[in-house]
């Protein structure tokens, strides 16, 4: 599975000549079929990263290669076909006046034929469970529903990578869970690569791999286990420690045997159960 799909090399970017670097010398790979979580404090450069990836801005220095294509003015449209993006504010990415028009928007841009479009719009809406809402207008939908429509709009174009830039941060817990569950199912059924930019550490803990950004630089890269070993350091990075890790630490402090800092409650419960059986 460790097949590198995107290579990001020594990437730097400034919004303005006189401004500080929004990104500085960032290098990492994205692997096929993985769920990569990108975390970091407000203003650490996560959204900037996402926009560069999709050619919405061009890097000052460094390069991005997506599926063998080096990102440049010439290849940018081909690369955008491969990468679908869902942004934070559900309102500001809804282009169409109804659900189906919005999903069709991307297809229209790509000059897909009408018959094919209708099929794809319906399929995409079905896979995010919004097929009941074809003619709804956006202001009658909840935030979670709008985001699922946005995902459908991206899916209809059949990308191999989907980038979520805090796509759930404006939603309530249920909307958030709906959206994440949708993505999880899609990832499993369509072998997509997911890049999720998030402030929700419980969500990041479930990713295959994590990247921690700090002040425009890549601070650490690794599995959630590795990253959450950073412990107190995370707090100084503007982050926090997920509950199961905190709990594991707390229990260790009380001399209750816990082998490691668990990332999921299930694991921790499991260990407590088996170790107490052995006692």
């Amino acid at each position, binding site marked *: 599975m460790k097949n590198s799909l995107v290579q990001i090399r020594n990437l730097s970017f400034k919004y303005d000549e006189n401004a500080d670097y929004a990104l500085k010398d960032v290098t990492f790979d994205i692997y096929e079929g993985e769920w990569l979580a990108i975390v970091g404090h407000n203003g650490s450069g996560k959204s900037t990263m996402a926009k560069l990836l999709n050619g919405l801005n061009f890097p000052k220095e460094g390069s991005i290669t997506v599926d063998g294509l080096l990102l440049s003015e010439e290849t940018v449209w081909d690369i*955008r076909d491969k990468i679908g*993006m869902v942004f934070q504010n559900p309102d*500001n990415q809804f282009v*169409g*006046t109804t659900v189906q028009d919005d999903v069709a928007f991307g*297809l229209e841009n790509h000059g897909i034929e009408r018959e094919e479009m209708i099929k794809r719009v319906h399929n995409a809406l079905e896979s995010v469970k919004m097929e009941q809402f074809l003619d709804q207008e956006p202001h009658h939908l909840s935030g979670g529903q709008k985001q699922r429509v946005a995902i459908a709009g991206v899916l209809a174009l059949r990308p191999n990578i989907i980038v979520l830039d805090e796509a759930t941060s404006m939603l309530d817990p249920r909307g958030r869970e709906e959206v994440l569950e949708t993505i999880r199912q899609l990832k499993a059924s369509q072998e997509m690569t997911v890049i999720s930019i998030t402030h929700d550490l419980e969500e990041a803990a479930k990713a295959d791999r994590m990247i921690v950004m700090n002040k425009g630089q890549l601070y650490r890269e690794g599995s959630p286990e590795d990253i959450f070993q950073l412990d107190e350091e995370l707090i100084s990075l503007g982050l926090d420690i997920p509950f199961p890790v905190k709990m594991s630490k707390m229990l260790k402090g009380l001399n209750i045997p816990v082998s490691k800092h668990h990332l999921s409650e299930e694991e921790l419960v499991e260990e407590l159960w088996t170790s107490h059986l052995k006692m």
Partner: protein
Amino acid sequence: MMEKMIFGRYVPADSVIHRMDPRSKLIIVLLFVCVVFIANNAITYGALVVYTLLMLAMSKVPMRFVFGGLKLVFILIIFTFLMHIFLTREGPIIFELGWFKVYEEGLRQGIFISLRFFLLILITSILTLTTAPIAITDGLESLLGPLKKLKFPVHELALMMSIALRFIPTLMEETDKIMKAQSARGVEFSSGPVKDRVMAIIPLLIPLFVSSFKRAEELATAMEARGYRGGDGRTRYRKLVWSGIDTLMLLLLLALTILLIIFRT
């Protein structure tokens, strides 16, 4: 007050008018605007009123809602009416009170012109109330299609319009939110001295402008990310269908026109 506005609002329902092709509705409204000027006496104006009310009834939009929403327009109409009463000095005097005189011609013109104005507003309101904004845009784009050959940016115009329409409810909501947020900080929008009320516009407009700008920027980014690069090579998802009703409605308007021409003086 904002809540009762009917401009640009679409009331979904299942009526003959709702089911019409937006193109025929647009053509009818456009023709109606010309036809209105044919009328010049009681019979012809009467026919126009009957026609318009018939359309309104067929649209199944609640009357109370329509007339409630036109309150502001009524003020304008009354104003127009009074202007004519005061300014037209032709024909016999029919009413006199000191220096204030009402001339027959003034009254006649006052009534007819306000009525004309009112009918135009009403018929356009019926259009917007019964047609989804996107359908209006599609209709326009299709009607203006021939202009593309003259390098007229029909597609861009239509897209701009549909986005503007799409964002009207969002911006109304935003306005409401900012007004509330500033009211909570002690701004009075609806009471207090006039000077203060005018000043109260600034804390409303600046945030509204900033946020609209931000929205526009984010929307443009989202559109670009989804592969938008102008009208060339784009296909259409929506298809307009012209049916028998549309032809029939056009004929009805034609009949009205003929009637007006016959009975005008």
